[in-house]
């Protein structure tokens, strides 16, 4: 029993679930309290101990099914119909050749998934290696996967065409089921189930007309007007912030001060005085896409963030196209409007390059990861359009581990997310909150919620 459990925990750890020895011991103890004949109960106990958040549960279920119900897990109907020789015979009749991929598929059908999994792993890693030509894309990986899938389909068609009545029907059906499993592994994309995700659509109409105008279609005159509106808003927010701070800063009794004052009244503590404590302020790290149309939304967000700087304990900002540039300094030493101009004319930002979110996240991890801790809110402004390059969403997951919250503002309307080269749905799985941010009203909603 304990051996099997340890094996299972090893499988869980391989699937990135963090399971500690203490939890293993607890689980073992729990299993002794319940009746193990009931499988649902058994699974509940394991899940309660090993998958400790909703995000982990999907991964846990997958590992559980593979481990206890997958190929090679003991009782398995399909295995009865398929011994190695018969399967090889059957599949060659169905048109299977003899190269490496076919051998791997044959192994998979007869119950040994290792070599097929190796094929998949090789395909995955192929994407990470930069190609010699310097052109980045994940097309090679996609083409590789396509080939495997076509082969599986061809064999399945071959199996279906086999003549009836030769007594091979059950075996062919079993083999076909196995091939379905193989295709499932191939086409599956692991995306964590993101339960806490808030998808906010704002409908407040703070300003008519100007407030509803998309950022991307503003005339220069309207941009000027927009600045006035933003100034007004900033004053209002600061005012509200001030009052909120004053009200909630009262802390516990300050004994020393009270006793000192008591001296004035012959030692009777008539006047009590309380400690004041600063309210916690958020640290902000903002990542702004400055390519094309996205920049128009990002600039207003930066404008607001920096005007409200004293509402946060620190604001760090980065601009990116295909690499990150730290623009905090520019904003620290210049007045907001000038700073925005400077960023636009900054030579460090390759405005003509193609946007590559994967590369941006990679660079961010290399150089700026230390800025993120449990008090940091990460704000990303971008459309998630990565020109078909490797999205590297695992880095975003890593940032999530360290940060307090990740909020993604997308200047595109929701209907366009996930179309074409947009990786929004991939990234969405790792965010705490996603919002459309097309116009001033939506931006105001966001900022108000962030500050208050």
């Amino acid at each position, binding site marked *: 029993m304990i051996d099997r459990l340890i094996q299972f925990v090893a499988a869980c750890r391989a699937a990135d679930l*963090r399971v*500690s020895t*203490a*939890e293993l011991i*607890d689980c073992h*103890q*729990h299993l002794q*309290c*319940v*009746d193990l004949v009931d499988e*649902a*109960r058994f699974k*509940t*106990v394991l*899940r*309660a*101990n090993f*998958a*400790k*958040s*909703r*995000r982990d*549960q999907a991964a846990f279920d997958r590992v559980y099914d593979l481990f206890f119900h997958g190929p090679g897990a003991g009782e398995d109907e399909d295995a009865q119909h398929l011994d190695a020789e018969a399967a090889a015979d059957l599949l060659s009749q169905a048109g299977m050749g003899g190269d490496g991929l076919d051998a791997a598929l044959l192994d998979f059908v007869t119950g040994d998934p290792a070599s097929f999994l190796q094929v998949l792993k090789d395909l995955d890693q192929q994407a990470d290696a930069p190609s010699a030509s310097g052109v980045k894309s994940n097309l090679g990986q996609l083409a590789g996967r396509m080939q495997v899938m076509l082969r599986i389909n061809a064999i399945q068609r071959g199996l279906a065409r086999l003549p009836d009545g030769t007594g091979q029907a059950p075996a062919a059906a079993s083999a076909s089921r196995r091939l379905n499993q193989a295709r499932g592994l191939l086409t599956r994309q692991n995306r964590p189930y993101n*339960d*806490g995700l808030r*998808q*906010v*659509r704002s*409908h407040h109409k703070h300003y008519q007309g100007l407030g509803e105008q998309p950022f991307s279609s503003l005339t220069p005159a309207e941009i000027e007007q927009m600045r006035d509106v933003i100034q007004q808003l900033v004053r209002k927010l600061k005012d509200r912030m001030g009052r909120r701070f004053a009200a*909630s800063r009262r802390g*516990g*009794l300050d*004994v020393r001060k*009270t006793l000192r004052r*008591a001296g004035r009244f012959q*030692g*009777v*503590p008539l006047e*009590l005085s309380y400690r004041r404590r600063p*309210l*916690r302020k958020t640290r902000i790290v903002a990542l702004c896409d400055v390519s094309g149309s996205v920049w128009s939304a990002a600039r207003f967000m930066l404008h607001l963030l920096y005007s409200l700087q004293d509402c946060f304990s620190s604001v760090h900002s980065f601009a990116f196209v295909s690499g990150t540039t730290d623009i905090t300094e520019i904003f620290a030493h210049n007045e907001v409007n000038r700073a925005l101009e400077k960023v636009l004319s900054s030579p460090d930002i390759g405005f003509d390059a193609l946007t590559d979110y994967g590369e941006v996240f990679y660079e961010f991890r290399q150089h700026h990861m230390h800025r993120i801790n*449990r008090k940091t809110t990460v704000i990303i402004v971008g459309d998630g359009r990565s020109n078909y390059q490797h999205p590297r969403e695992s880095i975003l997951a890593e940032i*999530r*581990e360290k940060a*307090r*919250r990740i909020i993604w503002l997308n200047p595109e309307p929701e209907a366009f997310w996930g179309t074409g080269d947009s990786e929004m749905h991939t990234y969405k799985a790792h965010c*705490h909150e996603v919002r459309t941010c097309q116009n001033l009203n939506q931006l105001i909603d966001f900022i108000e919620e962030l500050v208050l």
Partner: protein
Amino acid sequence: MEFESIEDVTCRLERAGYIPSREIATVVFLAAATQKPILVEGPAGGGKTELARAVARCLGRDKIRLQCYEGLDEAKALYEWEYAKQLLYTQMIKEKINDLIAGADSIAEAVERIAEQEDAFFSERFILARPLLQAISSDKPVVLLIDEIDKADPEFEAFLLELLSEFQVSIPELGIRKARHIPMVVLTSNNYRDMSDALKRRCIHLYIDYPEPELEKRIIRLKLPGIDEALADRLVCAVNHIRELDMKKRPCISETLDWAQALMVLNIGELSCQAVSDTLNVICKYRADAQLVRQSMDKVLSVK
């Protein structure tokens, strides 16, 4: 009064007015048997807090609740010295203190004599017990509910660890206080932020999802005994359709109950387009959601 088996848990929770799924019953039983805290997650209104209340009822224990919020600190959660009371006492017994130091030859001796009485001022009498200290120093075993732990700061979460693993707290002036009875601890979280690994490791995890239609019907019948069977069926069916819509806040079991009650009060026996439209405010907490439901009324009212 302890639970004997998982079936016993199910049965007693039902008698206390809470219908648990098998998963909930199993986890509650394990937590009670091994004295571990339960970390309950799930959508708002799914019965997380109610579970703690029901467990307290069927174990015949008191429930002590600590509501978490941003800025919650030890003074609010664990204990506080009652300075005002201490000062007041000092004033009232001033003469006694004078007596005490009357015969002292030097200041050092006077200080020494007062120091001997120090214990009188840092004693149980002047401690104001907050929920956590109440829970572990109670004479009878209790159920401790730490609600919305995700709203508290990470610092507070770290501070909870000592309590949850050792069931003890340290008060500098008095030393370590061990729990007289180990409380049954239930933590709830709305997933506002991820919990730390250290906290998760000490708890058994339970996710309360939207209930299965069958279970939901049973819950409605239990909470609203007078309800018409057919109406309950239609209601649950409609709510499940509504949950499939892309809403800001999906209705949970508490909204279903509110809705059923509203329909009963209004004497509506048949779920028509008009009836749904009139009572929509009960299940949709945002205007945009209500609009969405109105637009997809056909789908909501379809039977399968």
